């Protein structure tokens, strides 16, 4: 309802600005509408940030591009990517944070997009499997998965590759054992683990050599 009262302005604004604007407007309206005994509550309400109810326009920065999506607060980042933005490279496996097929990077950190609400990722940099290649040139991790045949059915592969990219960048792929442990959030039911490990380790070794 507050969305209707305070429609977003056309030009994107820093979060702090819109919050201040809201506080001014809310102060006026609530101050006018509420009787004296509720004044205490009105004061608290005026200090609140914006509440979102129902479908709103979210602006997400995905693979370097701003994208808008109409979504309720309950829409996960995974569903926003797949169902609203046609970015179907990110896969839905368990949808409960147990399999890692939905792994993407948010501000450079790997997360399960199935347990991340899209609305919470506004203002952050989201990287999906579609954002790794530079034109026709594959990312080294994609090349390594091809070279080492790091998949069978391929369903877990986008999540494995995103996790692998982060794993190497974090410095958690310096030995086979370490890479196994730090890739454990990505399940492969075909059992291509040996080749996935080889791919991740190769990229880690290449990058260590610089």
């Amino acid at each position, binding site marked *: 309802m507050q969305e209707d009262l305070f429609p977003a302005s056309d030009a994107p604004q820093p979060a702090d600005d819109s*919050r201040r604007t809201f506080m001014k407007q809310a102060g006026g309206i609530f101050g006018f509408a509420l009787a004296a005994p509720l004044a205490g509550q009105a004061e608290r309400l005026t200090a609140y*940030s914006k509440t979102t109810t*129902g479908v709103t326009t979210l602006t997400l920065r995905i693979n370097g591009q701003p994208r808008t999506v109409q979504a309720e*607060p309950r829409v996960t980042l995974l569903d926003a990517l797949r169902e609203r933005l046609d970015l179907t490279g990110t896969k839905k496996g368990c949808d409960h944070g147990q399999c*890692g097929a939905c792994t993407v990077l948010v501000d450079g950190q790997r997360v*399960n997009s199935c347990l991340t609400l899209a609305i919470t990722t506004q203002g952050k940099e989201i990287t999906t499997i579609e954002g790794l290649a530079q034109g026709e040139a594959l990312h080294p991790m994609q090349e390594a998965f091809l070279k080492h045949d790091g998949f069978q059915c391929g369903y877990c592969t986008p999540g494995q590759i995103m996790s692998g990219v982060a794993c190497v960048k974090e410095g958690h792929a310096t030995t086979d054992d370490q890479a196994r*442990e*730090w890739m*454990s*959030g990505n399940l492969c039911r075909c059992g291509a683990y040996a080749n996935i490990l080889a791919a991740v380790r190769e990229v880690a070794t290449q990058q260590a050599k610089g």
Partner: protein
Amino acid sequence: MNDFSYTAAATAKEATGLLKDQPTATYLAGGTTLLDLMKANLLAPPHLVDVNPLPLTAIEQTPDGLRIGAMARMSAVGEHPLVVQGYPAVSKSLLLAASPQLRNMASIGGNLLQRTRCGYFRDAAFPCNKRVPGSGCPALEGDNHNLAVLGVSESCIATAYPGDLAVALAALDAVLTLENAKGKQRRVPITEFYLLPGRTPHKENVLEPGELIVAVTIPQAAHAQRSTYLKVRERSSYAYALASAAVGLDVQGGTIRTARVALGGVGAQPWRSREAEKVLTGQPATEATFRAAAAAALREAQPRKENAYKVDLVQNTLVRALQEVAG
């Protein structure tokens, strides 16, 4: 998942104020437990108050010990040099938990409030005293292989906290700072934070409605520096503990001066064992002492048909952890 409205809170005062005005609202931190349970239709809050923007991520030395903001992420805390050096049990408990992705998401405060993995709690088709008070507990005679043997009741035998961090924090005398809507803070030792099931297994901790965990403080100690966390699972990684032990020892000249012991995966709540600590204190750091301590820790165990194996498993886990820190 149910529909809900959403507010991103900017400050703790705003977050607690929002919950005061909307008592059916729920805080959203990392979301790794909350969204999972909402997708399973076990929780359906009409409003979420996002506490992720709160400036509560600092990890800093204070006169009371290491203070960790409740919104710091498991990954950041687990690898923080002050945690790795001063509190190895805490670091290990974090890095052996969940997956790298989940650790990047989950907050310290949220971790302490994760819910049980008991299959009957997680399946709304079954009765469960924790989910629907008074409805019954099929776990007593049912599939209880991953449930608790210590602190249980006839109402509930779940390991209400299935995770790792709180076990390490219980061993090392951590204190939680809680804040309410009046802006008033209180400090609660983690060993007094969780409640045993008794006849009210739906009440799991002492948080008042709307109260927010804002920080965890772990006192400095020789036994904290010489501590470890050992976790035994059904597979080598990315699984909940069947049994775990957080231990800290201060050993001088072969004699144990102070000892800290807490067990995970076996208690209705993170299980601090002062019985084991009594047996260890003042004694030689030998396997015989460790075995006696382990036996003392499990003296009150109430195993069931499928979880009786845990009585031996957790004793062996504890002995191995003590041997590791005794060196």
